[in-house]
């Protein structure tokens, strides 16, 4: 035996007490790790959303539900479609202060053969698109050829496979990196592919026509405003110049999201704080109780020649061992909840949600461990001090 093992032996031979301390710290690190991962996933989701929106103004049909469903498609990956005349694209481009405008066409697929879920198909115009293209290029997908599709990360089809949409066979040419937004469950194709899909859908009785003679439709127009122009003014100008359309500033969408994100983050941070405070108090009480119980033992160690400092070190080391392992246990438990139930969390928050990179997760875990150990030291400081004051004389006085 070596005295360095004394704390370890104490923990090993008092398994009940050790388990209680480990579980208490596990609660602390669970709350801080789990909570921080959720909050930073929301933050990353918002960042990604801002980047994906990539436009100053979005023009959608003025039907009552289209603004809401656009947000749902974008944020939650619900499937939907709405249409307006393509004329609106030309009209938008005519407005002063518009630098670029790109149209997208939406189509809601029926249950495709490949997957059990309905998917959102989005047609883009590779020539004019400035929203999706940079992102397609980043994921290494080459230009969208006819009957090629690029799929979001959550779509259950791999590169090289064939996806059947309204009986049309589409070749999966690429898969995008996760964005944390609803776009992760969408499929992208070029406009001529989209035209084919639209008429195939028409054959199944799903119409996209705005009026009997107007077949050339779009679902959303992404607008980039020229530098130096006031976005609000351009927005109103577009609103006035287009027909049966409403122009939305993307900022307002992002503000909506970020304010609910802020509210949820506050709740989570509040919860972390409350759990932390309670856990810390319990740890403190546990250590104080242990200090009472172990006066005798520490007095004896003093009699045998231990210095006060060495006694403090003993308690610190015990606290360190307990809290470090508790920290690991808590992080492990949080991982078991946060990762497998990611989709559930995402759905119930209905906000963009993008889990941090492994390196980011590692840092959060490190922080949670550090915080557990620190609170172990802090909560045991009083106990350490009290025990180091254990009076060797009391052993004799007791008889």
């Amino acid at each position, binding site marked *: *035996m*070596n*005295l360095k093992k*004394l704390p370890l*032996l*104490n923990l*090993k*031979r*008092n398994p009940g007490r050790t388990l209680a301390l480990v579980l208490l710290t596990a609660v602390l690190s669970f709350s801080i790790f789990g909570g921080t991962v959720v909050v930073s996933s929301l933050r990353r989701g918002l960042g990604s959303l801002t980047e994906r929106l990539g436009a100053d103004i979005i023009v959608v049909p003025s039907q009552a539900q289209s603004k809401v469903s656009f947000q749902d498609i974008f944020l939650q990956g619900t499937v939907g479609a709405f249409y307006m005349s393509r004329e609106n694209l030309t009209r938008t481009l005519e407005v002063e202060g518009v630098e670029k405008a790109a149209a997208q066409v939406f189509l809601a697929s029926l249950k495709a053969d490949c997957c059990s879920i309905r998917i959102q198909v989005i047609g883009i115009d590779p020539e004019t698109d400035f929203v999706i293209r940079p992102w397609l290029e980043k994921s290494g997908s080459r230009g969208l050829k006819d009957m090629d599709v690029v799929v979001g990360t959550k779509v259950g089809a791999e590169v090289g496979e064939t996806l059947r949409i309204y009986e049309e066979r589409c070749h999966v040419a690429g898969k995008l990196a996760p964005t944390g937004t609803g776009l992760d469950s969408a499929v992208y194709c070029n406009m001529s592919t989209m035209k084919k899909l639209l008429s195939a859908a028409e054959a199944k009785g799903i119409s996209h026509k705005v009026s009997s003679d107007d077949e050339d439709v779009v679902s959303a127009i992404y607008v980039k405003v020229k530098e130096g122009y006031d976005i609000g003014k351009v927005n109103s100008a577009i609103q006035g110049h287009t027909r049966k359309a409403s122009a939305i500033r993307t900022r307002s969408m992002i503000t909506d999201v970020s304010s609910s994100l802020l509210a949820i983050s506050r709740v989570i941070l509040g919860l972390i704080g409350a759990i932390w405070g309670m856990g810390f108090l319990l740890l403190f009480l546990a250590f104080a109780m242990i200090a009472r119980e172990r006066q*005798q*033992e520490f*007095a*004896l*160690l*003093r*009699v*045998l*020649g*231990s*210095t*006060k400092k060495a006694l403090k070190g003993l308690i610190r080391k015990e606290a360190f061992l307990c809290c470090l392992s508790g920290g690991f246990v808590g992080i492990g438990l949080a991982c078991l909840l946060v990762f497998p139930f990611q989709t559930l969390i995402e759905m119930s928050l209905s906000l963009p949600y993008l889990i941090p990179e492994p390196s980011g997760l590692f840092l959060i875990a490190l922080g949670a461990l550090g915080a557990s150990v620190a609170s172990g030291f802090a909560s045991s400081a009083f106990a350490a001090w009290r025990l180091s004051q254990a*009076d*060797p*004389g009391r*052993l*004799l*006085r*007791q*008889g």
Partner: protein
Amino acid sequence: MALLELKNISKIYGDLKALDNVSIRVEKGEWVAIMGPSGSGKSTMMNIIGCMDKPTMGEVLLSGVDISKETARSLTDIRRDKIGLIFQQFHMVTYLTAVENVMVSQYYHSMPDEEEALEALGRVGLRDRARHLPSQLSGGEQQRVCVARALINHPELILADEPTGNLDETNENIVLGLFRQLHNEGTTLIVVTHDPEVAEAAQRTIVLEHGRVAREVINENFGK
């Protein structure tokens, strides 16, 4: 030079004089018993000699050094290096086995040496119980472990406060036999006891009453 000399020491708690102007000399190698009624200051005196407490007044010379002026830290060092302590209640570290309890003492003194610790347990007849936890040992066995722990570092002075107070006759005799061996090896022993038989095993008995030395009795039968 005496190993231990108390010069006019007093220990005062509030208006209670637990020790009142006590002077005692103990020569190296001596075996002294301390007797006296409950509350007469025996444990208070042992605490002071054992460097666990300081007198309110007076000098305590250990090998000529006045320990009543030392800092708490150097008192710890002196206790560790020179003194072995045995209590009435068998204080052991509850989560350590018998041999580990002995080794803790070695560790604070110098270096743990399991072989030597086992030998010490052998000396008190407990080598085969070395791996038992205190809860698995009888009271007498625990006290014998405490004796092994007190003698492991070859202290110059062994202080025992009622070492046999909680022991049956058999264990009492084992412990007294060990004291006799230690005495023969030259260790100085100071033993507080209520038991006249234990006192008679020593060379000399000092009787305390109301914190004062009431009388001293030389044991004429010592060694016979």
